[in-house]
């Protein structure tokens, strides 16, 4: 398979998940799109380095995690609330769901940077072993972290929902 074809196949397979990872990290759709593109530019540039020691998924998610973590935050960068116009076009029951999802993104963006990445991977149902490989954290440490982050996220989400 030519490199370009392989890249296209990888993009089709992993871009939706990476987009959600970036969205969870930034809480901002536009910024998430930028980070997604940056991640895949790096995937393209580094493809020849891929030796198959890890799965493509792990390797691509690691690049995306690095891209998110080194994205320089501007101090005034705040979570952008869901686009009202877009929400207005969605039917009522779906709109409620969409609002809940937006609230979830908002809650995730309240966590520490590395916690955002870890919990997004957990929410995506990635096995702990793979999350450990992506983040470079030992599995034991990761379990402790995940337990803490789950509790923290539930608390933040519930506190917002009560408002």
């Amino acid at each position, binding site marked *: 398979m030519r490199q*370009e074809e392989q*890249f*296209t196949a990888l*993009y*089709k397979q992993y*871009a*939706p998940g990476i*987009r*959600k990872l970036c969205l969870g990290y930034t809480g901002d*759709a536009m910024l998430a*799109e*930028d980070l997604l*593109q*940056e991640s*895949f*530019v*790096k995937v*393209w*540039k*580094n493809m020849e*380095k*891929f030796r198959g020691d890890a799965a493509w998924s792990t*390797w691509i998610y*690691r*690049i995306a*995690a*690095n*891209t998110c*973590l*080194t*994205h*320089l*935050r501007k101090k005034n960068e705040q979570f952008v609330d869901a686009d009202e116009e877009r929400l207005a076009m969605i039917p009522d029951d779906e709109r409620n*769901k969409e609002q*809940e*999802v937006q609230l*979830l993104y908002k809650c995730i963006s309240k966590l*520490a*940077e*590395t*916690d955002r990445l870890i919990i997004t991977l*957990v*929410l*995506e*149902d990635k096995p702990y072993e793979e999350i450990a490989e992506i*983040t*470079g*954290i030992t599995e034991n*440490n990761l379990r*402790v*972290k995940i337990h*803490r982050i*789950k*509790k923290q*996220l*539930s608390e933040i*989400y*519930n506190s917002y*929902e009560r408002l």
Partner: protein
Amino acid sequence: MKDFDAIKDLWQQSKPAEQKTVDLQAITRQSKDTRTKLFRQLLFGGITLFFTVVFITWMMYFSTMKLTWFVTHIAVWIINTTVLLQSALTLFTAYKVSLVDDTLPPAQHLQQWEDYYAFRKKQIQWNKPLYFLFLNLGMGLYFLEVVHGRPIGYIILLIAVYCGWMLYAYFILGKRILEKEEKRLKGIMDELKLIEEQLKAE
């Protein structure tokens, strides 16, 4: 009260944004990646400085400009060497940026950036004063022949304008830029350290 499983269900039910078709050339062109931007900036700076040396050499030896004093040749070579070394240093910095590996685990990736910014922070502290000193030494010697035989008023005006500009550029403008750059680098390094600590913490 939602527990974590309900949150997970909500996340998994969320529709991913509409999948656009991939246009590799477009995403490469539009890349806002810090490393690419930094690399291009440094590469451009290094190449520009190199061509400055080529231009000065051409002007001195191949144009109609005729400066004959030995000291003027020394001056031009001091300037050329200074600019050439600055060009090499800028290209070396670009090379350092190019070595950052995006595929390493996050802690090692962050460490690479931290090392780079620490290098830059040290570099700007010694590099700028030395560059300024040697460049002005060369310019000072160069002016000896240029102003020779000119009216005293012209010489005083030229020296006043040149020194005034250089002192302003170094002590006011340069200092301000240096402080801003140091603050920016410190901010980035603090941020990287913070994320590194988050990775280490339980």
